[in-house]
């Protein structure tokens, strides 16, 4: 399991994360929400070991997170791939280089679920749409059944129907394979519908961690209530009963 224990991260002179603690069990989904600049991307970078915490520790089953080979779905789909190589190369390089195992029908199933026709993988990133590139990013992350996946705004580049199908595919695979998913998103509707817990980040601190039900019905903090009400007003969330 993922354990983030009192982690602070400095970026230059300012402190980007202040004493963050959270945990995530296999098979569970934690959605991290918050406004731009709240520290969401810094949290992902710290979990991946790209930024060193100035205080605290981040572990997966007691070991550094990199030991579990976490998969990452990046926010910017175009920059998620080597532009000179085919998408197929990018999808399979983690499999072949990491000597990971892939079931025979997995590529076909994932492509079907993500609405990607197989020939698309022979193109380079510049020759597909942003939405297609985002779905190939999800394909790359899930192809070799990772134990832990970090999703950075996974659905932001997709249209509403594809968002729905992709979210369902991720949820189905998670049910079958039991990977832990940490999803950074602005989309409160997606977080409420698919996460087991929602962590709200504000100015580098966790404002509140709660289940979607509690977040919708009776958030403790003023900030969470404001977030919820704004999402309801925008139509991203159903009004609380």
């Amino acid at each position, binding site marked *: 399991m993922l354990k983030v224990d009192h982690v602070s991260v400095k970026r230059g002179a300012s402190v980007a994360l202040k004493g963050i603690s959270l945990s995530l069990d296999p098979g569970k989904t934690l959605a991290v929400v918050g406004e731009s600049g709240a520290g969401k991307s810094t949290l992902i970078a710290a979990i991946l070991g790209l930024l060193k915490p100035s205080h605290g520790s981040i572990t997966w089953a007691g070991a550094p997170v990199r030991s579990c080979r*976490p998969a990452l779905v990046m926010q910017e789909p175009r920059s*998620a791939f*080597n*532009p*000179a190589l085919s998408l197929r190369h990018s999808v399979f*390089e983690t499999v072949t*280089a990491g000597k990971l195992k892939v079931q025979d029908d997995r590529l076909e199933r994932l492509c079907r679920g993500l609405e990607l026709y197989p020939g698309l993988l022979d193109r380079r990133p*510049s020759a597909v749409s942003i939405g297609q590139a985002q779905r190939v990013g999800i394909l*790359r992350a899930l192809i070799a059944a*990772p134990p832990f996946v970090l999703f950075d705004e996974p659905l932001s580049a997709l249209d509403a129907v594809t968002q729905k199908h992709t979210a369902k595919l991720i949820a189905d695979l998670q049910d079958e394979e039991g990977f832990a998913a940490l999803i950074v998103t602005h989309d409160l509707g997606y977080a409420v519908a698919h996460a087991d817990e929602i962590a709200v980040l504000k100015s580098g601190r966790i404002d509140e961690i709660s289940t979607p039900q509690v977040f919708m019905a009776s958030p403790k903090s003023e900030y969470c209530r404001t977030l919820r009400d704004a999402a309801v007003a925008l139509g991203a969330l159903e009004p609380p009963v």
Partner: protein
Amino acid sequence: MIASIVDLVLRALIVLAGTALATFALLWHAPGDPAQSIAMARFDALVTDEVIAIVREEVGLDVGFWSAFQSWVRPLLVFDFGNSSVTGREVLPDLLTAISYTVPLALVGLAIGLVVSIPLAFVATKRPGGWLDRLAVAIASLGAAIPAYWLGLLLILIFAVHLAWLPAMGARTPAHAVLPALTLGLGVAASLTRIIRSGILEARAQPFLPAIKRRGVSSKAIGRDHVVPHAAIPVLTVLGLEMAFLLEGAVMVEIIFGRPGLGTFLVTAIEARDFPQVQAVVILTALLFVTVNLVIDVIYRALDPRIGEQDA
């Protein structure tokens, strides 16, 4: 791929044709009477108008620009560079002798440049911003700021005059080539170090690398598939330009170190307005450039298939 190579070759031919025309036009229109210059180079004294007229007719300067250009360019198509206007000797054998001094010097200069710059750039990028990196950048900047003629004189002063380890002039033994090759090589090393260093740093900063690295792709595979091909493209571009610097530098270095070669050959030919000799050097140099750039373009396409494509 074949279509794009054919396209590159056609472009190369246009460059060569343009070079031939430009060289001939520049020599033709340069101030002063070319026939007089040739006559003076031949007879080494003040010459009469009759002699100049004979020379003008003999070397084909009396038929007008386009006719003279055509009569020079036609034999060139079968690599006949003609005879020197001054000595009457065939240009090609003398040119090949000059090249046999210059090309090895340029190649050794290039080798020194690569041997110095590649390890220096790799050491520098181990810890970007560290003291080794700053030192490497400082050395490279210093090297780029020093002109070849000054570095050459400095090396002569240190290694020939004060230490008396190496000869300063001539080309009789391999030891005579050390200082000229160092003069050329250190200049090349300076610019290559900077470009290899920045190429590696830029390639390592590609945003998709953390995702595949954390997923288990080894540093070796990342280096081979993502860093080296990305870093190699600007390095190749500069290497192509360095070929220009090497030949241009070799000409200057030969004169500083009193070595025979293309430098002396070219300077003597320009002073005498020896059209066939000057044109032969320029055409051969242009041919070399075009070939080097052609090879680099083909390597570009192998490293990054997007280059030269419609959707690139």
